[in-house]
């Protein structure tokens, strides 16, 4: 099967054609496009960012992210876990709010501070 992708590594936005069996890439103008094309069809990963309700603070929400990119197919599962959780102030940037989310070995960390009310 061939998959059509746009390379996201520079403004040229080359249209890539990746053969998912042989892992050959066409349409790229440089090596970055080849690497990107292969990783997108073999193990695509994404950062997930969201918010969590925070109690005991003037703020309603604290923003969060995955500590590193997670498998693309896990995006909605990770969001589900985040949405189940409420945290309590004080929260500091970098605090681990969920560890090993969805058994991925990756944590959900705070990206904003929330002071106690």
């Amino acid at each position, binding site marked *: 099967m061939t998959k059509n*992708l*746009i*390379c*996201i590594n520079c*403004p*040229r*936005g080359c249209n890539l054609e990746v053969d998912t069996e042989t892992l050959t890439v066409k349409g790229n103008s440089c090596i970055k496009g080849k690497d990107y094309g292969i990783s997108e069809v073999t193990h695509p990963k*994404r*950062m*997930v*960012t*969201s*918010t969590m*309700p925070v109690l005991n603070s*003037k703020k*309603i*929400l604290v*923003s969060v*992210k995955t500590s590193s990119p997670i498998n*693309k197919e896990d*995006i*909605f599962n990770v*969001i589900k876990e985040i949405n189940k959780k409420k945290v309590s102030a004080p929260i500091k*940037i970098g605090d681990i709010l969920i560890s090993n989310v969805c058994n991925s070995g990756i944590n959900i960390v705070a*990206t*904003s*501070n929330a002071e106690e009310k």
Partner: protein
Amino acid sequence: MNKEKHDLIIIGGGPAGIAAAISANKAGIKDILIIERDNILGGILNQCIHNGFGLHRFKEELTGPEYAGRYVELLKETKVKVLSNTMVTSLNAKKEITAINSKGVNHLLGKAIILAMGCRERSRGAISIPGDRVAGVITAGAAQRYCNIDGYLVGKKVVILGSGDIGLITARRLTLEGAKVLAVVEICPYSNGLNRNIVQCLNDFDIPLYLSHTVSNIKANKNHTRVEEVIISKVDENKNIIPNTEISFKCDTLLLSVGLIPENELSIKAGIILDPRTKGALVSNNLETSVEGIFACGNVLQVHDLVDNVSLEGERAGISAANYIKEGNKKSKGIKLEVGENLLYLCPQIIKPSSVVDSTPIFFRVKKPLDNCKINIIINNEIVSSINKIKLIPSEMQSVNIRKDMLKGAKNIKIEVIKK
């Protein structure tokens, strides 16, 4: 009237204002006040919870609040004063400021002032969409704020007009929170967002992008309380609607992401001359406006796409303001830059050769996407520098550096982009 006096007053505590304060402080100015209308510093970054900020500045990808957090920490190491929950309501050419907060009306006076008020989004009025005037039509940035700061979703079935980065990021965010984004509609034949955002915000979630389309009608529900249907149509090369190309979407929300305008009400009150192209102040290379001692930086000066550039511009404004406070105004002749072929604008608009130390950056955007082109710097009708580019697009701000040696005997300066 009793006025509170400061060496430097900065209006707006977003990334531009904070960077300006830190650099002016480093340059030896002790008495600095930032006035911010929100309860926290950081400006628009607080609602931009996605990552991708600070790759140039910190060599890592941060989220908006993290980027703001880094700068707030740096600010805490200084003695810069911050007056939050305070809105500046007027400014004049004598550098007198009126600001309002819960304690009442404050009158202030600065030796120098830096404008860092950011920008606002263009609304429905600014682009005149036909159809019913009902609830459910709001800007994408407002939806982002409701979702990420206040914690509620603006709608369940959403159409987004405009494919700039704010529209794309909001499409993904609302999808993750359970809304269905039915379409992103773009009047241009190309998207105005980064490829990365097209892929990771739309393609990842199978959200269709309609290029060369626009909203041709908005229909309200029976009770006339909210949007019920949005109709889009194809447009021709001149952006005129082509009849009989309608596609209908049953939805409860239309988000507008149709451009940003620098927030310049205060600048106008102070008599500062604006550039009709950037909609920001007309400035010289030290970022001084047409009013002596008033400087501008960040989105209030020109709409930026990278916050890293906003911080750099803030730093430059801080240094210029510090020089002005220490040395007063050095009157010197300026050369007005000529906006050449294919350019939307140039910023700064004026170069004062005597104030250029080594070189000075000039920022610009192209009017339309251009392949295989070159950027020419033309001084006294001669090309002094020519830079080849494989591709330039309007959504990516570009810059060139004009070196001091190029400016010897310069009478006119033009920058253009032409096809090879």
